[in-house]
C-alpha cells in the first residue's frame, strides 16, 4: 500500500465498512428502543383495561348488593310490615271478644310481641336502606346513625363535618355512608370502644372521612399483610367501596389507644349532582 491512490482506496473501503457496521449497530439500538417503548405502551394500555374492567366488575357487584338490600328492605316494609300490622289489628279485636282475664293477658302479650317485631322489622329495613340518605343526604344519614348508636348508651359518639356535601353523587354518598357504618360497627363489635369520633371534611375536590376509636386497636401491618380472603367481610366491604371510588384507606394507631381509619377521595374525576 505504498501508492497514495492505493491508500485513498483503502481509506474509502475502511470508512465504508466502518460506517456500515456503525449504521447496523445504531439501527439495532434504535429498533430495541422503539420496540420496547411500543411494548411498554401496549402493556400499560392492557393494564389500564384490566384495571378498568376490575373496577366495573366491583361496581357491578356493589350495585347488585345495594339493589338486593333495597328489595329486601322494601319487601320487609311493604309485605312483612303490612302483615304484622294486620296481625296486631286482629289481636286488638280478639281482645274485645275475649271472655276471661287469662285470655286478655295473653292477647296483650301477643300485641306487645307484634309491636316489638314491627319495630325490629322497621329497624332492619332502615339499616338495609336508610331512607334519610336518599331524602336528606349524607350528613343527615350519618347524624341519624350517630343518634342511634348514642341512644344505645354503650358508647360515647360524636360527629363533626366541614365543607359542602349537598352536591355529591349518590353512589359516593352511599359508599361513604356504608364505610362510616362499617367502621363504627367494627369499633363497637371488635374493638370494644368507649368513644367513637367521626370527622368528615371536604376541601374543594378532596374529601376525607376519619373514624377514630379508643378501643383495643389492631396492628396496622396485619391489615395490610392480610390477603383479600383473610380479611373479614366488613373490612372487605370497606376496601371494595374505597377501591370503587378510586380512593385510599389507611389505618393508624390512635394514640394512646385505639385505631384511626382515614378514607381519602379525589372528587375531581367524579361528576357531581
Amino acid at each position, binding site marked *: 500500500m505504498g501508492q497514495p491512490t492505493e491508500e485513498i482506496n483503502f481509506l474509502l473501503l*475502511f470508512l465504508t465498512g*466502518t460506517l456500515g457496521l456503525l449504521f447496523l449497530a445504531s439501527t439495532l439500538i434504535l429498533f430495541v428502543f422503539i420496540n*420496547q417503548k411500543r411494548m411498554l405502551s401496549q402493556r400499560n394500555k392492557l393494564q389500564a383495561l384490566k384495571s378498568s374492567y376490575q373496577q366495573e366488575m366491583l361496581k357491578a357487584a356493589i350495585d347488585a348488593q345495594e339493589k338486593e338490600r333495597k328489595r329486601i328492605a322494601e319487601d320487609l316494609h311493604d309485605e312483612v310490615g303490612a302483615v304484622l300490622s294486620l296481625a296486631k289489628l286482629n289481636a286488638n279485636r280478639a281482645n274485645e271478644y275475649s271472655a276471661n282475664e287469662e285470655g286478655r293477658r295473653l292477647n296483650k302479650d301477643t300485641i306487645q310481641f307484634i309491636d316489638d317485631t314491627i319495630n325490629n322489622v322497621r329497624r332492619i329495613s332502615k339499616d338495609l336502606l336508610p331512607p334519610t340518605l336518599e331524602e336528606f343526604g349524607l350528613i343527615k344519614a350519618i347524624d341519624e346513625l350517630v343518634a342511634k348508636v348514642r341512644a344505645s348508651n354503650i358508647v360515647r359518639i360524636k360527629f363533626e363535618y366541614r365543607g359542602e356535601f349537598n352536591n355529591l353523587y349518590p353512589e359516593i354518598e352511599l359508599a361513604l355512608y356504608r364505610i362510616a357504618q362499617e367502621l363504627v360497627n367494627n369499633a363497637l363489635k371488635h374493638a370494644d370502644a368507649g368513644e367513637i369520633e367521626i370527622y368528615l371534611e371536604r376541601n374543594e375536590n378532596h374529601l376525607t372521612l376519619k373514624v377514630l376509636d379508643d378501643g383495643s386497636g389492631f396492628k396496622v401491618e396485619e391489615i395490610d399483610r392480610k390477603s383479600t380472603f383473610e380479611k373479614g367481610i366488613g373490612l372487605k366491604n370497606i376496601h371494595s367501596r374505597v377501591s370503587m371510588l378510586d380512593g385510599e384507606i389507611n389505618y393508624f394507631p390512635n394514640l394512646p389507644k385505639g385505631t384511626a381509619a382515614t378514607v381519602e377521595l379525589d372528587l375531581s374525576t367524579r361528576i357531581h349532582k
Partner: protein
Amino acid sequence: MNVDFLQLILTTSSYSAILPLGLGIFKWRSLSFELKILSAYLFLSLLTDITTLQLANNLINNLPLLYVLTVLEFALFSWVYYNIFESFHLKKSVIVIAALFFLVFVISLYQNGVSSYATAPRTVESIVFTIYAIIYFNQILKGNHSFGLEKDAMFWFNGGLLVYFAGSLLFFSLSSFILEHASLEMQRKLFTTPAILNIVQKLLFTIAIWVSQRKK
C-alpha cells in the same frame, strides 16, 4: 489558525473517561454493582489512555499497554455481563468464553510479542462484546421491563459497547496490516476512528451512570 484536528481527537479520546468516572465517583454510593465495575474499568481506562498518549508523544512504543488494557477490559466487561444475563446457560457461557479469550490472548502474546498490536485479542473481544450486547437487547425485548429504556443504565452501557466494538471491528481486525503497510500519516488518520468511537462510548457510559438508580 492551524489546529491539528487529528491530535485534538486523539487527546480528547484519551481524557474522555474523566466525565463518566467523575460522575461515577460522585454517585458511587447509589451505583449498582455492575456500574461500580464499570467505574473501576473507567479508572483503568483513563490511566492507560493517558499513559499511552504520553508514550506516543515521546515516540515510545505504547502497544504493550494495550495488551494490559485489553485483558482487564475483557475481564471486567465479562463480569458485568455475568451479572446482567438472566439465563444460567448464558452466565456459564460468559465464563467459558472468558477462559477461551485468555487462551487466544496468551497465544497471540506468544506468537507476536508484547511490542506488536493486539490484533487477534482486540478482534475477538470486539466480536464477543458485539454479540453480548445483541443478546442483552434480545433479553430486554423478551423480558418484562416495567420502565422506559431511557432510564435503564444497562441499556446505555450496552449501547456504548455495541457502538464502540462494532464500529472498531474493522480497524482492530486490520490493525496489523495498517501498522505494517500504511504510511504514518494514514495510520494517524485511521487511529482517529476508534478514538472517535471511544469518545461516543464514554458519553454513553456517562448517560448510563447519570440515569442509574439503585434497585430497591
